[in-house]
């Protein structure tokens, strides 16, 4: 038992953090509203796109524990690109015999996003602008839609577009359930990251903003809001890490652990939004201030890859369904 990451894992995340924080700050997110601001070449250059692909196809063959903190870093900067989806599906595509596609994906040449096949009528994928294919992925099935018909739709945070996906797909012959769990984990990890940024903004603001002759961060009512958000964020992290471990070790309760990761990370991010907005006061409710860039990403991520309620059902089915009949 050693509940900590290795030096290599931490070093990798650190390197990605440095690159992302330099290139994907709030200003860059705003630029991405109006002009094509493509972060994909940066990810290719950093080797991030090759992380989870098999070594035989030019990848690094890394597991979820290796890339989970990379996804956290992507969440911290609200990276407007489907990195989590990419990390989740390359292994499945490789298993299903799409080696050439995977090789092109690891260099950034080919772009494949993924969409959640839930109960809703339509499925949406984070748009690449010019994606070659989309994997429509559910907890038990996966289909590859080549040359999909996209209907691109703007989202509330403007730096990200969603595309509803139509087109006939071919069923992918691989472990779809695992790929789905990877997609959920990547989503949860990004939520963990964006929750941290949202909370950090509030803490910095509370130190700087003065009312009644003092920083507002000295008032207990404000402090306790922030501590509540921190508490949720802190206790969500090990749940996300455990899900990565369960993916790598093929734990029999992998799906429960992954769904828990989503529940904890999404609730942490949503609480961070509420508390951060409250602590900021009116300035946080404006379009000119940066907070909304991250809050909107948190809400969008929370809605993606199965809501908290959807994942609660999945945990309940196993935990309350079988072992305690």
């Amino acid at each position: 038992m050693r509940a900590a990451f290795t030096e290599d894992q931490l070093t990798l995340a650190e390197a990605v953090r440095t690159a992302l924080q330099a290139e994907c700050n709030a200003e860059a997110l705003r630029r991405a509203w109006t002009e094509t601001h493509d972060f994909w070449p940066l990810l290719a250059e950093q080797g991030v796109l090759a992380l989870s692909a098999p070594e035989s196809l030019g990848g690094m063959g890394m597991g979820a524990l290796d890339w989970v903190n990379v996804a956290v870093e992507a969440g911290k900067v609200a990276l407007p690109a489907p990195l989590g989806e990419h990390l989740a599906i390359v292994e499945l595509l490789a298993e299903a015999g799409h080696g050439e596609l995977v090789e092109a994906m690891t260099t950034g040449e080919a772009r494949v996003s993924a969409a959640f096949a839930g109960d809703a009528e339509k499925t949406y994928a984070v748009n690449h602008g010019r994606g070659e294919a989309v994997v429509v992925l559910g907890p038990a099935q996966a289909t590859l839609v080549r040359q999909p018909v996209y209907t691109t739709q703007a989202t509330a945070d403007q730096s990200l577009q969603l595309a509803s996906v139509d087109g006939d797909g071919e069923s992918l012959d691989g472990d779809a359930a695992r790929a789905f769990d990877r997609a959920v984990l990547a989503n949860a990890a990004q939520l963990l990251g964006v929750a941290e940024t949202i909370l950090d903004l509030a803490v910095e603001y509370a130190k700087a903003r003065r009312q009644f002759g003092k920083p507002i961060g000295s008032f207990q009512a404000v402090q306790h809001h922030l501590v509540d958000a921190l508490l949720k964020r802190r206790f969500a992290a090990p749940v996300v890490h455990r899900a990565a471990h369960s993916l790598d070790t093929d734990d029999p309760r992998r799906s429960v652990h992954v769904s828990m990761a989503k529940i904890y990370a999404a609730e942490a991010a949503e609480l961070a939004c509420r508390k951060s907005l409250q602590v900021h006061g009116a300035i946080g409710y404006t379009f000119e201030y940066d907070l909304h860039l991250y809050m909107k990403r948190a809400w969008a991520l929370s809605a993606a890859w199965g809501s908290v309620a959807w994942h609660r059902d999945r945990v309940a089915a196993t935990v309350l369904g079988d072992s305690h009949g």
Partner: protein
Amino acid sequence: MDLTYTESEQAFREECRAWLEAHVPRTPLASHNTREGFAQHVAWEHELFDAGWAVVSWPKRFGGREATLIEWLIFEEEYYRAGAPARVTQNGIFLLGPTLFECGSEEQLERILRPMARADFLWAQAWSEPNSGSDLASVRSTARRVEGGWRLSGNKTWCSRGSFSDGIYGLFRTDPDSQRHRGLTYFMIHLDQPGITLRGVDDLDGEEAFAEVFLDDVFVPDADVIGEVNQGWRVAMATTSSERGLSLRSPGRFQATADRLLTLYAERGRPERLRDRVLQSWMDAEAYSLYTYQTVTRMREGGHIGADSSLNKIFWSEMDIATHETAMALLGESAWLAPDAPDATEGWLHDFLFSLAGPIYAGTNEIQRNIVAQRVLELPR
């Protein structure tokens, strides 16, 4: 990250489980907050100590087996899983013990630890005074220098199971001109000394869970001062961080409660309206365990728990109440039946009432939030 147990950790678990299965009393003991129940619990502690399970993480010479922190967590999981009795030695072995390891003299370790661990000498904490609760640094009880020791006077309160204990420990003002945290000294006091008067205080459950202690010129020898004179605050902080953090409330306790809740939910026909609450308790107990394994790993690699122990305390105390509220909701009207009523369900009412104390003792959750705000988030005072 390796969340699987090593072979030796697994073997340790099996050894714990086998012993507990063979020895845990089949019928629950009377409440440890009553005189009769306390005596039963003391007898159990003797058995636990004599088999080497009372203080698994302590050095062998004090009755431990030098278990790692991970093994200690395993022991706790097995202990609560087996439904073993509450630990009446807890304010000794989890609070005073760690303080002595940190700040005590070799002579004190030799003299105090084994009887503490075997429940031959029972310790109660005496932090609070009638006018010093959350504001612990405002204590007014005094100690006056005399030949060979000190004379203590004042009034301590909320001493858990003080009525059945042999000694108390707490802070006294040794420098009469001092303010706040300065000028305090950490004393251990035997309750059979002349000048001590004890008054039992019943808790919400109607049991004598607390005592108020009046000290009138009570002699304490120099040998029973822990650490330096006037440095008591620093010595006490060593204890409060272990009280809030790891040692007082290990994850095994909450996981066992969550498992009992799942059983109760099934017995009560799985009411859909309570499903999410039951599930939340189960998941929170898991989350607390995962968090603790990360904390323990960090500590094993040289880190300190520090102010993180306050986050721990907020989490487990609020989780514990939510879990018991859900159990009470599952039980409906019958939840409020007295323990000896024909339809009463074992334990839940008592445990629910006790869970309500969680956000109050060991530093209220408001104080914990202040600590986290100032020391973790580094917000201004």
